[in-house]
């Protein structure tokens, strides 16, 4: 498993079961990455499944157009948000689409609820990029007006308590910046090695990859953004992805958004997987050493043998 899935496996499997086997009562609270909580329940009747999501940064997402994206994806299924949650969809098992394909598509769409909610700012930024690109093509680089040359505003999503994603569209690229905090010393080192690999990968082989930069100080794009911590202590790392026009074509957009969203989880997953790998090698090593120790027995020394009365035997030469 190199990549993490984008969809929530549990929602997917619950819905699959229910679609196939008919109604049954459900009441489950499910967590997802980044402090997202789902609640799947059947509050009224067993055939009506209510799926609610709570995202820490939902107000921010709404500000960046999440409502429109969610309406596009879930249009007829949206219901008033459940108390304590930010957004709810409801599926009626008695009014399912007829053919299997449409059902599978519905399951897939609902299990991507978190991804779609978080996708809004990205989509908005990508749209803005296209707009700016069209604008910029009218000018040569020198005479472009202020707004076009500078690019759009920075969209900040504080998706975790201490970490945030910043997205900024310009006329020739979209910059996505993650701020990361490592609480663990070891994790920080692992993280550094990993990120260096990302930076190097492009240089070495994969020319088409987005450019990745890693630094401990807030990048220039983030200057003057409220909430950006410039303490200089080096606790916070900034990972910058530069998405070029070829990543932003309409065919690729959805894929790019999914990938970049799971970046942090992917990153942490792999740090943990490498630790597991190192641990298994350590265990091997220990087992080998133990084996050596077990085999090492002191050789039996030649001892002087005595009779009961204390006399000794002498070997006659």
């Amino acid at each position: 498993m190199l990549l993490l899935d984008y969809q929530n496996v549990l929602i997917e499997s619950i819905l699959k079961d229910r679609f196939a086997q008919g109604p049954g009562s459900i009441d489950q609270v499910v967590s997802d990455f980044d402090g997202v909580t789902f609640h799947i329940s059947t509050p009224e009747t067993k055939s009506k499944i209510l799926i609610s999501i709570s995202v820490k940064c939902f107000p921010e997402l709404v500000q960046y157009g999440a409502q429109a994206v969610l309406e596009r994806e879930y249009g007829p299924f949206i219901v008033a948000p459940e108390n304590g949650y930010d957004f709810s969809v409801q599926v009626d098992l008695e009014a399912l689409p007829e053919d299997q394909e449409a059902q599978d598509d519905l399951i897939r769409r609902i299990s991507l609820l978190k991804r779609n909610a978080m996708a809004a700012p990205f989509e908005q930024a990508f749209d803005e990029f296209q707009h700016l690109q069209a604008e910029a093509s009218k000018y040569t680089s020198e005479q472009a007006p202020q707004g076009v040359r500078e690019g759009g505003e920075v969209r900040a999503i504080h998706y975790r308590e201490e970490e945030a994603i910043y997205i900024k569209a310009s006329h020739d690229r979209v910059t996505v910046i993650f701020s990361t905090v490592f609480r663990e010393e070891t994790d920080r080192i692992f993280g550094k090695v990993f990120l260096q690999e990302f930076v190097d990968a492009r240089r070495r082989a994969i020319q088409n990859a987005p450019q990745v930069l890693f630094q401990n100080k807030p990048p220039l794009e983030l200057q003057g953004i409220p909430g950006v911590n410039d303490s200089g202590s080096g606790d916070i790392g900034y990972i910058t992805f530069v998405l070029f026009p070829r990543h932003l074509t309409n065919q690729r957009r959805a894929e790019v958004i999914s990938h970049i969203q799971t970046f942090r989880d992917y990153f942490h997953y792999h740090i943990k997987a490498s630790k597991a790998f190192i641990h298994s090698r350590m265990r091997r090593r220990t087992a080998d050493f133990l084996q050596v120790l077990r085999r090492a027995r002191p050789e039996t020394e030649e001892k002087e043998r005595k009779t009961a009365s204390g006399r000794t035997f002498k070997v006659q030469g």
Partner: protein
Amino acid sequence: MASQTPAVVMDNGTGYSKLGFAGNDSPSFVFPTAISTKGPAGGAGGSGSGRPAVANKPSFLTGGAGPSSHLSAKRGTEDLDFFIGDEALTAAAGPGYGVHYPIRHGQIDNWDLMERFWSNSIFKYLRVEPEDHYFLLTEPVSNIHRIRKAFPLNPPENRENTAEIMFESFNCAGLYIAVQAVLALAASWTSSKVQDRSLTGTVIDSGAGVTHVIPVAEGYVIGSSIKSVPIAGRDITNFVQSLLRDRGEPDSSLHTAERIKEEYCYVSPDIVKEFSRFDREPEDRFKKHTVTYWNGRSVQVDVGYERFLAPEIFFNPEIYSSDFLTPLPNIVDTVIQTSPIDVRRGLYKNIVLSGGSTLYKDFGRRLQRDIRHLVDARIKASEARSGGAKSGGLDVQVITHKRQRHGPWFGGSLLGQTPEFRSYCHTKAEYDEIGPSIVRRFALLGGPGST
């Protein structure tokens, strides 16, 4: 509510792993504790042979690191090429993958595989960031030492290993390791028969491989009195299968036997009466089970006396086994009688069932009746001996509840959602301060003093 993430409850058993979040009434995922990796199947010990992975291979090949040899030669991402759970079994059916079972007899046998199993459970299935969540894991009670003396008790080192993985690999926020039997007791609090939420009682835990009778007093397992019965779900399935074979049914596969066991079996109050009842009214007693094959063909299998005979092997083991002859009620009675005298009353009053093989209809009622007979007989005898003294009587109660199947998991979910749960956990900071030995002791969750 978003301020506190729900605790993750993981109950990794020999056969199945139950994963989910505290506060839910059923585990989110239940799948086999299996992991399939590239390479040949089995590894040391052979899959399912029941032997632990002994180093009977050349020493430099095995050791604690498990079967994946030449680990150091792997420079790519081979270590991530594995599947767990149902996917593991599917992958192992194809070429290239071999399936391994990292837990044997309730104890973790291969830490490498277990670490990867956990990592996949957390990231792929539960989808949580371990830093944000508290974890509740389970461990078996001091193990199967009664049947197989060769197996050691669950040593505290296992806890330490678990803690090392949980804290150092996954940096989980906090950890609590609970004993399955105690969680099973907590799960019984949902039953309406339970008035006081005490952690004193006798747990009868019957899974696929073995049945344990575990006395628990105030949340502490009385290790010296634990008894195990080598009769459990798998034996019932085998017994059904042998009955089907004797009759020459058209399909007597293990799978069919298992379906019949799960769908039709129940516990009868009296075998002789039940036989005559079957003879009197055959039409609604005898059933037909339809087996449909993958190619669409189907056959009918008659289901007869095995409906009540199969679970009967708990109460009359002689009909199935020739070397183990003590009925389950007698074992329970012995277990309680060997426990300290001051807790016996509580143990009789709160006999809790847990595990899939206790789900038969009327299992609890029959057990309660049989144990009560034993107790009453003993009281009568001692009354006669004392010459005129009257006993106040003894209350025997077997608790049947709805969460029996995943009892330990549900108990974990129940305790994990309590507000004080976090204060019982050891946190990452405490671990860093003290080291793995910290997990040797845990404050008793849900015990006296807490709500």
